[in-house]
């Protein structure tokens, strides 16, 4: 029990991302409304972005801007700085997520114009009839 609690607390960032991811996945798979699916997809992507961001983070560390004076008379201690790379990667991933979202919404608009609804079962019903 103790261990489990330890695991839960020490790695809370992972638990958060996993929970978010599952919520997102649930939305994508189980929801009937297309926009809700899109929201689920966005949550899913965001969860992974959060996962990357949290993995570069260190407690008590600062942004990695190395000031020259400090560098000149001492050793740079990596522990003092957060890892910037995952954050930079996530800039790209955010751009990707936004564009995916854009495409998805645009498609949703087209679907709505065509069928007059965003409920998947109703759309399929219409397709079956035609």
């Amino acid at each position, binding site marked *: 029990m103790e261990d489990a609690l330890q695991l839960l607390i020490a790695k809370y960032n992972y638990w958060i991302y996993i929970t978010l991811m599952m919520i997102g*996945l649930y939305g*994508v798979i189980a929801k009937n409304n*297309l926009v809700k*699916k899109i929201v689920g*997809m966005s949550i*899913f*992507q965001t969860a*992974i972005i959060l*996962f*990357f961001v949290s*993995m570069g983070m260190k407690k008590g560390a600062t942004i990695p801007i190395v000031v020259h004076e400090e560098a000149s008379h001492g050793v740079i201690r990596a522990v003092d700085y957060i890892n910037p790379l*995952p954050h930079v*990667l996530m800039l*790209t*991933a955010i751009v*990707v997520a936004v*564009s*995916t979202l854009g*495409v*998805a919404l645009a*498609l*949703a608009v*087209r*679907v709505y114009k*065509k*069928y007059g609804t965003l409920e998947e079962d109703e*759309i399929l019903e219409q*397709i079956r009839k035609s």
Partner: protein
Amino acid sequence: MTEHLPALIVVVPLLSAFLVFALGWVKRELCFPVGLCGLGVVAWACVGLLVQVLESGPVTYKLGGWEAPWGIVYVVDTLNGMVLAAVSLSAFIQWVWSAPSLLRQFPDRLGALYGLQMLFVTGLLGITVTGDAFNLYVLLEIASITAYALIAMGEERAALSSLNYVFMGTVGACFYLLGVGYLYIMTGTLNMADLARLLTGLHGSRAIQVAFLITMVGLWLKMAFFPLHGWLPNAYTHAPAALSGLIAPLMTKVMVYVMIRIDLHVFGPSYSFEKLGLDRAVVWLAVLAVVMSSVLALAQRDLKRMLTYVILMEVGYMVGGFWLGNRSGMTGAVLHLLNDVFMTLCAFLAVGNLLYRLQGCSFPELRGAFSKMPFTMGGLVATALSIVGVPPTCGFFSKWYLLLGALEAEHYGFLAALIFSSLVSMVLFFRVFEWAFFSSQHENAEKGHTGSSLQEAPAQMVVPLLLVAAGLIALGLFSGEIVSRIVEPAIPMAVS
């Protein structure tokens, strides 16, 4: 110039994508020739690169001059040299071929369409050439997002099908990204070669196991490996005919390439096949994929839709052959990757030609197609023979290696599935040919010569098709050469 070839492969199509897009507003007629030049340069660069690799070994290119683990590197060996050449050549052929139908179907949106197509190719080439796991993700998404947009250009259900593809595609890509995240936590690097080096010491780690599984699931989703295939048939069926000629042959195959690359050159064969003990299970999954997609294909009444299930079947071939884990099976998978690009290309070019002239390609609508469009149907026959696996078309030779691999691994389930699917594909295609050959109007066909009822697609569409069809045979005849010079060196020595 030649040392910058790897960069050209991505930079040229990227720039021409924007150029073509801009020209769409300014001077629409220029889109086609400019793009053609762009793709011509790319194809030249890819083939040049392959030749260079064959002559003097793998090429590494540091983007922006940054050294390996920090910067992004492009690495070209025979494996992706081959894929690059196949992708760029088929994109070039498709560009020429698709022009008439695009002009007819989307006269007012040419710039955007051409731009998207070019971006799609950029993404695929980038995925293939890159040696960096995260860079791969970004390029994967470039290719996917453009594919979503292209598919949505179709009529009727296209938007809905595309939206479904967006969901599944995004989930797949995110899984891949998650896997990369785990790898990064454990190793602190994203460079594939570096990863491979560091991972040898981490074979026991639970996190690496999770990373491996998540990555594979993500890739299987993207390549539509059987239980995860739901998005593909609709998306490819409803895409405009001219564009499915681009997306259908390339997307899944490049994803198979990524799987091969990650398994062989990041995790390494000993980890992928022995450590986890999943290999037989995956092959059984492939058996299921092959059998189920054959059966589902039998249920279709529309040529284009049927072909999408054939794609699923071929994905099953490649995944199964690869996961047999022995040299013959992998040779078969890699060779089939190459062959299948052109087989599927040929099939979809033929379908595009049919759709250019006919109302649709459900079976009854194909009636009399042999007399109306003999060349197109000839191309389709070549494809069919190749998919069934009749020598000397290329499909036979890759199937041979796959079968041999199954026999050596004593995986008789896969062996039987391959034979079964060959027989089923014969039934599939000859059913189509029956519809097209036995027409009710043949009585009034004139005696002796045929000719008056000819309604062939324009030459610009027929010639590329026939070229690809001839290519299927050429690939078959040269398969010995291809295997010994390209495929063999691509498989690590550790695989026996």
